[in-house]
């Protein structure tokens, strides 16, 4: 067992967990933030994507102890001027970037990371940046449009 301290969405967390605890389980079960989803659990689908020190990572393939003393941002940590939604979140709303919504938290976080590094991505850039995120409703066209909308309306906040 290890006491793992993580600044999660700006709020310091401290939980004693088994060393084998995955970051996604720490977030969902210890910190009780259920925005980040577990999809494939094999680092393919990207539903568990969160930002670790600003970089998009798959939290099903990171141990909580590897994030010791680091900063993690989940979809709950985003905010902005669109009734509290960030530009990327509002983009997904405006452009119908989701159907069932299961992949959405991961898509939103990966897109947010993209826009922070490249504020004006073209379609090719967006598709490459979202290679690690699978949508089983196959709404990719609208997801790309959502990210473009966000790029034009505030970016990766």
């Amino acid at each position, binding site marked *: 067992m290890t006491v793992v301290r993580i600044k999660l969405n700006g709020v310091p967390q401290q939980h004693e967990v088994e*060393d084998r605890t995955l970051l996604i*389980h720490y977030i969902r079960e210890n910190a009780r933030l259920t925005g980040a989803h577990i999809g494939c659990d*094999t680092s393919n689908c*990207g539903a568990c994507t969160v930002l670790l020190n600003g*970089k998009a*990572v798959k939290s099903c*393939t*990171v141990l909580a102890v590897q994030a010791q003393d680091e900063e993690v941002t989940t979809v709950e940590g985003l905010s902005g001027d669109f009734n509290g939604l960030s530009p990327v979140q509002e983009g997904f709303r405006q452009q119908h970037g989701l159907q069932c919504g299961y992949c959405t938290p991961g898509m939103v976080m990966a897109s947010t990371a993209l826009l922070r590094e490249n504020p004006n991505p073209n379609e090719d850039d967006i598709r490459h940046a979202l*290679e690690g995120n699978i949508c089983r409703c196959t709404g990719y066209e609208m997801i790309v449009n959502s990210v473009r909308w966000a790029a034009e309306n505030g970016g990766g906040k």
Partner: protein
Amino acid sequence: MIPALFTHVPVTTVKEASDALMHYGDDAKLLAGGHSLLPLMKLRLATPAVLIDIARISDLRGIREDKNKLVVGALTTHEQIENSPLISKYVPLIGAAAKLVGDPQVRNRGTIGGSVAHGDAASDLSVALFAANASFVATGPKGVRVISAVDFFLGFWTTALNQDDVLTEIHIPFAQTPNWSYQKFTSRSQDWAVVSVAVSGSNIILGAMGEIPLRAAKCEEAIASGADLEQASNFADEGTSPSSDTRASADYRRHLAKVLVFDALTEAKQRP
């Protein structure tokens, strides 16, 4: 899926890592980015009792010039390699291969050292580093060894690293030729290579055509003795032993090897 129970032992120096490896013996594995090891542990294909976490050894991170080569710390991530001006200036082949590893999230966590130490024959960086005449620096209880790529890859998931070795650096000589190419065929965008080919000058190295990255020796000889690219690429699968698995049949891999070697040689030749 949750890994079997283990104890996490964080270390901050190579000496501590080396000492811990000696102390725990065969029960221990090194953990860097964890993007090869953790998936195996979640599937319980690996069940180490101790993970020695080397991710915070700051000396092992980063890329620097040293005379006529680049020294890449084993903990340098694929993303750092992909975006490194030094890599793109001196060994662009390595940057091109790094850019095709997994997906952005994987490249943000996965490390060059972890990728080569895992010893997968389909590893983009292993294949490219072999073509680039890279060598691998291991620190063990008896000191430091420099292992050439030819001697590094030994068999299925097996390298020349001993249980008590820490892979610390990868040395990549500055490319002496502008003629390079990396070709990777995947069935899905983020996937492992079905077959890959790295060309650098006269080196032609194949990925996923056997248990380890393999030199396409017959192709290299054909080119050296004046064969045209099409003739030479027909020898691409000679001396290989590709497997049949869920990604492709052995016959399909043999076919792909010829096609990709031709594409790689063509692209390499066209570069200024």
